[in-house]
């Protein structure tokens, strides 16, 4: 498998990729459907060309124009923006945002303070499990709590995932609405100056209970992979999450004596905590959900809330190529996130090189990704048609 790839080859390869592999037709249908009732031309796109040249306020009328634009400009990065009241190329700064998919961005660098296998740009199948948990928790909340149906999950190209909700109710959600959804889903707050970032109150909300059930499915596995509390430093960070000094000392003493295995140490902690709470009834009041808070701080999704709250934030398009990794931002189904292997994700190099060893596998995975995308767009179009019909009927009744 080619680890080394030459970014300088991209300008030659991208035009081929855009023509042969990028699902232009479905992409345009997805955007057009999401721009409804406005036309596709009111949607903003942005391109980043070679040498960091940035083009904003681009728009297209149809797929043919999109194809021409791609060939002409050959963007290294393709971003999608909001739907405006007029064509963005005309309106520019004065155009008013009308709608935009509800989006979420989860990046593994936000887990750097807890993941031990990788840091910064590096990512592996072990820390990918955090993304699996994040997908399941967010997807379930969006469906069950908010009633959203058209939820697109996209690999971001290097170390994270994006989520696009295309339901009409989501697209037309205003800024305060987006902020409320982001805050609802956000349990981890506080920056690098705060050690304990999760505080649960007396009544655990149903969504938090559900998230904990999901975390529990993967917790032991992640604990064994990451060995959070095996190293001296890891144990120190863990202890900082315990608000009671006496308990902290007790746990430190017990765990330091134990074998390095995080799983064993965790069980040791749980036992120490339970015993301590039985003996000190007051402690329960301050730390009723300590175990849950720690699990959440380690495993719960860390969203970039600014991306969700912003209405006109430009976000990377599905099926674009990441310039540093060459990987395709593939669409995947949340229930298949666990079986997604990072080295099996198609890259522009393997797709265009028939001789590459992973060419066949990557081409097949690409087809699956495009099919996932297609299924979602079809169901979105159907939902939109039903909605338009209902609206038309409703207005007739009113009249």
């Amino acid at each position: 498998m080619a680890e080394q790839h030459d970014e300088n080859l991209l300008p030659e390869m991208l035009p081929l990729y855009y023509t042969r592999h990028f699902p232009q037709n479905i992409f345009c249908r997805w955007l057009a459907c999401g721009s409804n009732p406005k036309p596709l031309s009111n949607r903003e796109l942005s391109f980043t060309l070679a040498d960091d040249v940035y083009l904003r306020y681009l728009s297209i009328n149809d797929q043919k124009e999109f194809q021409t634009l791609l060939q002409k400009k050959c963007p290294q990065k393709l971003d999608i923006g909001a739907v405006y009241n007029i064509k963005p190329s005309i309106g520019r700064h004065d155009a008013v945002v009308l709608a935009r998919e509800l989006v979420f961005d989860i990046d593994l660098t936000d887990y750097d303070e807890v993941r031990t296998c990788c840091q910064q740009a590096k990512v592996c199948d072990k820390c990918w499990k955090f993304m699996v948990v994040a997908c399941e928790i967010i997807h379930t909340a969006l469906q069950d709590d908010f009633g959203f149906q058209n939820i697109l999950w996209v690999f971001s190209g290097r170390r994270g995932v994006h989520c696009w909700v295309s339901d009409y109710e989501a697209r037309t959600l205003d800024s305060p609405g987006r902020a409320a959804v982001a805050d609802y889903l956000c349990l981890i707050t506080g920056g690098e100056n705060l050690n304990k970032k999760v505080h649960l109150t007396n009544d655990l909300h149903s969504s938090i209970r559900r998230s904990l059930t999901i975390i529990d499915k993967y917790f032991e596995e992640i604990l064994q992979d990451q060995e959070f509390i095996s190293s001296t430093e890891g144990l120190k960070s863990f202890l900082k999450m315990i608000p009671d000094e006496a308990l902290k000392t007790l746990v430190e003493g017990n765990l330091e004596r134990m074998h390095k295995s995080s799983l064993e140490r965790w069980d040791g902690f749980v036992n120490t905590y339970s015993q301590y709470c039985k003996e000190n009834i007051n402690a329960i009041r301050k730390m009723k959900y300590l175990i849950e808070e720690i699990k959440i701080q380690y495993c719960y999704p860390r969203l970039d809330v600014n991306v969700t709250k912003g209405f006109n934030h430009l976000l990377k398009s599905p099926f674009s190529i990441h310039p540093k990794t060459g990987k395709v931002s593939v669409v995947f189904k949340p229930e298949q996130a666990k079986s997604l292997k990072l080295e099996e994700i198609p890259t522009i190099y393997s797709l265009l090189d028939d001789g590459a060893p992973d060419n066949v596998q990557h081409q097949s995975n690409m087809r699956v990704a495009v099919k996932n995308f297609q299924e979602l767009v079809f169901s979105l179009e159907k939902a939109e048609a039903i909605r338009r019909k209902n609206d038309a009927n409703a207005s007739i009744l009113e009249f």
Partner: protein
Amino acid sequence: MSFFYLNAVKGDIPVHLLETVVMKRLEYLESIVKSEANAYNEYVVEGSVYDVVGHYTLCIVAILEGREEFKQYIIRGEDMLFMRRLKALSAYDLRCFAKKLLRIIRKLCSELHCLKPLRALCRHLMLRDMAHHVSSICAENCSVHTLSVSFKHCLAFVAKRQVVLENGVAHIPCSKWKDYLLNLFHCNLKNRLYKIDISGLRHDPRVTDLLRKVGKEIAPLNRFNITVLRSLDVDVASKMFPPCMLHLHQHLRNTHRLTHDQRFYYSLFLKDLGMPVEEAIMFWREEYQKPPNGKSACCHNWAKDEKKFVYGIRHMYGLEGGRKEYSCRNCHQIQNCDTVYSEGGCPFKSFDDNKMEEILNISKTDPVLSQINELRAQRKYTSACVTLLQNRNANKPQSVKGDGMNFNFTPLKYYLVLTNSLTSS
């Protein structure tokens, strides 16, 4: 007429009486905000003509007066008044309140966002057993009755996870109905103060007279002297910075890098302090030309990203792109913006105790620290900062009225008060 203030009242009133009504209302709201006991005030009898006229005219004053802190102050006062009145209603009064609102809603021509859920709630409250339950029996976690509304109509509850959601529908338990009514009232009032354009009234002599009278009463915070802040003056000036900005400044000096949002907030703060755009470019260049000290989430350096930085700084000053001028975020925004990798934030909220004490530079035995910690425990982070400011400012001759500060407090205000740049009008 209802004290929910869904619609204004028609009629004529002498101007001098209008002024009295408004000034008395403002006085009454002031005492409510300060939680003082208030005597009977004939101008604020709920649902009376004076009450409604006073409310709407005060709204006009707040909109035209323009200052953010005054608007927030009025909203707080009216919210507290509404809640006080609501809690005092008997079951019978509650039913009347609900029925009256339903009658008004039926006749309303405008399409207000809050009308649908308000109508739904009032339909529940007008029923005898529901009104009785809500007024007397309903305890803190009671959910004998539920009201189902779209999640979009109770965003405040959703954001704090105070309500169960199912398929986009929020199920509000009866124990929260009064809070929900307050929420609807609050949203309606905010809409009125922020989304309605009455600039046509600005030159009406009756209004200008009133504005002048009100202007004399409220805390005069609007005049301040801003001198030019140069890049080499920042280290000295930082001694007067609020904890949040001081921390960012120190972090920048130590590591030579700040992540995007923190860089943005700090740049805006320096701009509002009077740093001209050329000085800003010099300031950031000096730091970003140095290599980062230690691990930083920011991967930029001046050599590679100069063009982007200069564009970004100029954009902030309204010299590029949309030419929009930005100003420093207020405390509320900074407190609600903490991301996991952020090196900044409000120290009173997002820092561990020892980190906070370090940046505040006060000893553990200082009595003001326990005051601050008590406020932090109550989640009153801005009040904690104001307490610190008042403590530091105690020896200075000019100190501004305490209660005016908590509304729309910003890092800039902290600096201005401490450096005595604020002068009364």
